[in-house]
């Protein structure tokens, strides 16, 4: 016969060890993590409860910052290195506004009004700075090779840090603010702190989901994220939509700044880099570009970090940055697309 021989073969496919080993290792690591959490819970139940509360509180903050990363990445594929530092600036603005201008000291129910003022101001501040950065820098680099906007973001991050380091802003050491918390304490956690964070964060997250999923703006955002040219042809204002995304991200960072200041009662110029790294890890953990993922990732990392710092078998806060980094590396190896993300391959 001269027709092509395409009748099928008896060859056995090779058994591949790689994926199996990878899967087994991944499961082992996961099991170890679960085991670690469980023995923490068994050996120190009180610390465990406290850590979970702290983790929730910090995780909510991380989620707010992570959302800013994930949205900007989702729409223009830029890791906005300056985002963490924007958050840091917002925390300084919040501190100065609440303590120096509005005279907040002991936190009581009367603080609610200054809090709302600070939230509004800081969110506006964050949005304004982020949109300006987009307008002045990133927008001009949209057609440039990817390295250029990335480096610009690094440069801006540097500028923000440099500004915060000035003595008349925050100085180059940690600055403690005379803000005092009261109320009940469970396992070393101020209940009101946790409540405050949740009360502010949850509505914000819901609002964000609503905006992206339901509104016209949100639809435009998703369209631009998929295909800028296509969106433009469909009459969507691409520049406006991208600006809007930056504004949302900046506003969230602003809100996170206020909360961070109130929770930690201190400000530091290096917070941005540290927390930014954590928040980005959270975004990657959840699947970058995915809003729910960012929130879940933020809370997860918050919990792990809190357990590490306060749990019975934790390594202590000296190593928290390293722990987050190890999570990031493990993620990169085993599940770079994150929990909710989809694996993407370049098309030819």
């Amino acid at each position: 016969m001269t027709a092509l021989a395409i009748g099928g073969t008896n060859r056995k496919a090779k058994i591949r060890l790689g994926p199996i080993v990878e899967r087994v290792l991944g499961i082992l690591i996961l099991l170890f993590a679960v085991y670690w959490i469980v023995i923490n819970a068994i050996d120190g139940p009180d610390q465990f409860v406290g850590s979970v509360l702290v983790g929730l509180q910090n995780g909510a903050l991380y989620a707010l910052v992570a959302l800013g990363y994930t949205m900007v990445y989702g729409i223009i594929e830029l890791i906005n290195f300056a985002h963490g530092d924007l958050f840091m600036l917002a925390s300084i603005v919040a501190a100065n506004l609440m303590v120096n201008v509005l005279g907040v000291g002991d936190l009581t129910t009367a603080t609610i009004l200054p809090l709302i003022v600070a939230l509004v101001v800081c969110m506006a501040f964050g949005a304004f700075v982020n949109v300006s950065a987009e307008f002045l820098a990133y927008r001009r680099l949209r057609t440039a090779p990817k390295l250029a906007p990335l480096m610009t973001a690094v440069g801006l991050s540097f500028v923000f840090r440099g500004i915060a380091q000035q003595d008349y802003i925050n100085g180059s050491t940690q600055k403690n603010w005379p803000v005092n918390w009261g109320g009940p304490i469970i396992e070393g956690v101020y209940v009101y702190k946790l409540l405050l964070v949740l009360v502010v964060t949850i509505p914000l997250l819901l609002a964000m989901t609503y905006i992206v999923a339901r509104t016209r703006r949100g639809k435009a955002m998703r369209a631009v994220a998929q295909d800028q040219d296509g969106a433009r042809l469909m009459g969507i204002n691409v520049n406006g939509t991208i600006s809007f995304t930056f504004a949302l991200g900046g506003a969230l960072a602003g809100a996170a700044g206020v909360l961070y200041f109130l929770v930690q009662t201190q400000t530091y110029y290096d917070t941005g880099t540290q927390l930014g790294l954590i928040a980005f890890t959270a975004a990657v953990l959840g699947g970058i570009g995915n809003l729910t993922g960012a929130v879940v990732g933020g809370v997860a990392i918050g919990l792990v970090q809190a357990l590490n710092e306060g749990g019975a078998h934790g390594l202590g806060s000296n190593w928290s940055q390293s722990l987050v980094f190890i999570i990031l590396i493990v993620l990169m190896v085993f599940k770079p697309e994150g929990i909710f993300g989809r694996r993407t391959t370049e098309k030819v």
Partner: protein
Amino acid sequence: MTQAPPRPETAGTPDPVDVNALYADHITIRFGGLVAVNDVSFAIPPRSVVSLIGPNGAGKTTFFNVLTGLYEPTEGAVFLEGRDITVVPPHRRAAMGLARTFQNIRLFNLMTAEENVMVAMHSHLRSGIMSTVLRLPGQRREEREARDAARELLEFVGIGKAEGELARNLSYGDQRRLEVARALALRPKILLLDEPTAGMNPQESELFNQFVYRVRDEKDLSVLLIEHDMSVIMKVSERITVLDRGNLIAEGTPDDIRNNQQVIEAYLGKTGTREGRRRA
């Protein structure tokens, strides 16, 4: 790894893995719930010129990506000269003799034509960091030979004078030629050409047909063409495989394909109208 169920060896039917230069066995690719390629078997005999065609969205590109190693098939296996390469990464496939060009020319724009070709020799060259830094005699000889080979290849595709030009400054046609030269530098056994005649006029297409056979004969390899334009393919191919919406609907000589009812329908009938709707 999934595989075709073993079947009894029937007399007179040689194992396609052995007789073909490349054989793709029951390839299925799913993206989530979407079946992009559905149980397609495909063979490239040694020293042949075969084509894979299909209307837009037929799954050609996806299938092609399985052959080159960008995608791993959900089911099925790919064999290159009897070796299972289903999970071999793209660069190793290239080194094993599977070379390709790109539908949208993807040269290294800021490297010269000669350097472009020499990049593809990477897997054949040996010199490491130390010998490069110290420029040991072995490395110098190797570089010289590579450069000579690169120039020969550029001559072969007809752009011998352009060796020092940056790839981005070449004309469109020359860029296509350079892509072929670059692919040939891998000393391939199979050359995959992805829509090679896109943007060519009829005369150029005619020249291209001759060129394909010259490459096949002089470089002793098989050529696989991917096209959506039937007219080009009919002239150049020895055998044609037609995909439509992920399914293999026909395989045969150009004459067979021309008269095949399903192919005609796929191109003119239902798919045509649906595409018309989509464009409207």
